[in-house]
């Protein structure tokens, strides 16, 4: 529905010539369209990166202030943000959830359309029209502030594509505000056109709904997520298990972790953020990928992990604190251990004095060895992290974006159709 038609329907009459001020608003409308378009491109690149991962493989992620540039396969702020539970909603209902960037794409596309409309129309662009545009343009700004805050305080990483969206959101609102200033005054005595606003709002809802529905309908599914990837052959003795989280009555789950493995840290953060520690009674089995104790690795992927694992077994009451400390200091601990094994042991002992006299003892080495042998007895892949719900192994590709979805379904005992 066009602006002039809207006005006609509402019985308003405008002078035939385009007013001077309305013409003055056009450059700002054009600027607003351009900003929305740029925001849509940023959102599309981010959505594209997210969707590519629906094939359950590892892909590069674009991480640049220039949309489409800076594809990286390694760790980046964009990857951290994408794998965080805040990158999507409804994660327990849909593998990976509905990406926030898709919603952003819908909103930016809608704003392109909405801001371009008066540019293509000969009807006057009044403050009634511009007021709605300002309100609509404020939505991405509000969301930018909210997600920027979450990004910094909860995720601890900032994604450049997101920053691009934040910036374009600001520019978009700026353009809308200037267009509002330059817009014609509304006809004297004309009431705020709430029905028109409702219709425009409805159009925005259609954009979001259509894109979301299409996303859900066409999202690829894999029965493997529910089948799992193997089962435990032997549960092992409780001496090697370290309880994690506070829940003791939930469904039993086992995580296979290496305290100095970056992926394990990310996995732990996802588990915490997803509240899965509350629903599961999680126990950890230590599987350090460190040649000092693990004969299954030719080179130490995470030097120092054996020492940290020993410390966790030495003081089981403080094991979670030791793990949290190791996660928080992974890089310096690995670096220290790669040159000085005694050094990392001293560092652990100074941080956790209760492990003195135990660290490095034959009793504790024997216990850590049993953890590793538990992996052998169950013929586990030599990688971390791994998650078992009951005795069913969650596929590795389901431990990041699909974690909540897979665990939720496994907990419900769903079977693949």
């Amino acid at each position, binding site marked *: 529905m066009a602006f002039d038609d809207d006005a006609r329907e509402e019985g308003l009459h405008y002078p035939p010539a385009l007013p001077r001020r309305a013409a003055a608003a056009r450059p700002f409308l054009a600027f607003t369209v351009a900003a929305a378009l740029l925001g849509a491109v940023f959102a599309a690149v981010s*959505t594209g990166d997210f969707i*590519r991962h629906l094939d359950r493989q590892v892909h590069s992620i674009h991480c640049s202030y220039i949309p489409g540039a800076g594809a990286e396969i390694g760790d980046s702020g964009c990857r951290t943000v994408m794998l965080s539970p805040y990158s999507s909603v409804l994660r327990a209902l849909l593998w990976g959830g509905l990406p926030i960037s*898709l919603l952003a794409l819908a909103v930016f596309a*809608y704003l392109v359309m909405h801001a371009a409309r008066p540019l293509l129309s000969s009807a006057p662009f009044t403050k009634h029209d511009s007021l709605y545009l300002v309100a609509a343009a404020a939505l991405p700004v509000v969301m930018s502030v909210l997600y920027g805050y979450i990004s910094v305080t909860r995720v601890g990483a900032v994604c450049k594509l997101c920053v691009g969206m934040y910036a374009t959101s600001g520019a978009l609102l700026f353009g809308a505000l200037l267009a509002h200033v330059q817009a014609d005054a509304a006809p004297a005595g004309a009431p705020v056109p709430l029905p028109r606003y409702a219709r425009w709002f409805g159009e925005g809802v259609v954009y979001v709904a*259509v*894109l979301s529905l299409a996303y859900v309908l066409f999202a690829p599914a894999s029965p493997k997520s529910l089948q799992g990837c193997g089962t435990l052959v032997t549960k092992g003795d409780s001496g090697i298990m370290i309880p994690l989280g506070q829940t003791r009555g939930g469904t039993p789950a086992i995580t296979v972790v290496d305290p100095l493995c970056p992926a394990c840290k990310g996995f732990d953060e996802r588990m915490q953020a997803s509240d899965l520690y509350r629903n599961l009674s999680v126990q950890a089995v230590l599987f350090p990928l460190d040649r000092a104790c693990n004969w299954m690795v030719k080179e130490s992927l995470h030097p120092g992990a054996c020492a940290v694992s020993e410390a966790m077994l030495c003081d089981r009451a403080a094991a979670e604190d030791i793990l949290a400390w190791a996660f928080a200091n992974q890089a310096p601990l690995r670096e220290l251990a790669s040159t000085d094994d005694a050094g990392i042991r001293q560092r652990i002992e100074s941080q956790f004095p209760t492990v003195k006299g135990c660290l490095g003892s*034959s009793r504790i080495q024997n216990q850590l060895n049993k953890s590793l042998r538990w992996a052998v007895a169950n013929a586990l892949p*030599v990688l971390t992290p791994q998650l078992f719900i009951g005795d069913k192994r969650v596929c590795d590709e389901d431990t990041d974006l699909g974690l909540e979805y897979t665990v939720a379904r496994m907990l419900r005992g769903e079977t693949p159709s």
Partner: protein
Amino acid sequence: MPDRTHLALFVGCLALPLAFVVASEHAAGTRLRSATDAAAEVPIATAAEDAYCSAQLKQVVRRVASACGLLESGARGCKPADAKAVAALTGEDFNALFTPLSQRARIVQFDEGEGRLDEAGMREIETVWAEKRGASFFFVVSRASTDGGVGYNAQLSQARAQAVLQHLEAKFPQDEDLKKVGLLWLGEEFAQLGPEFCDWQRSRTGSPCTAQDINRSAFVAWIDCAI
């Protein structure tokens, strides 16, 4: 006319991202269906299989495990005559099999005519036991020097092997891995150690070491072979 323009704008702005999303998801679905199982390429956790695990060494260890018996079978090891038959090797060849374990094995020394462990011997055994890593089998090969009679030395070497086992049982009670201990006592009859073994890690490192001394011993080692 404006209606059409605006409708086209509405549809166009919606259709473009819609097509992008659907096409991207379709491509992801195609890749998902054709993807190979990446996990299959990840190595599986296994017991250690070191380079020194020659077929002959594995044969000897396997024979000890079956013929001489692991603890779980109720047997208590092999006496010298059995050991010769089990090894089916000359003494020199038998010892040569274990040469690559020079950094892995320890030699626990005993006093002359003594079947009891001293403190250093106990510590040595505990150290070796803790260095299990991925090994599948714990080997105890005890000997006696040529001092004394053959029968006496057979009994003495048996006592030495049993002393190692008893210390492990006392120090690590309930340890499932005790079932992986294999005992072989050779007396003075088979595979006497040469003086070159004095250079190995032994419980009395630094003390004088003659051919007689080195054979008043129990050789202890985890064997990193998938038996």
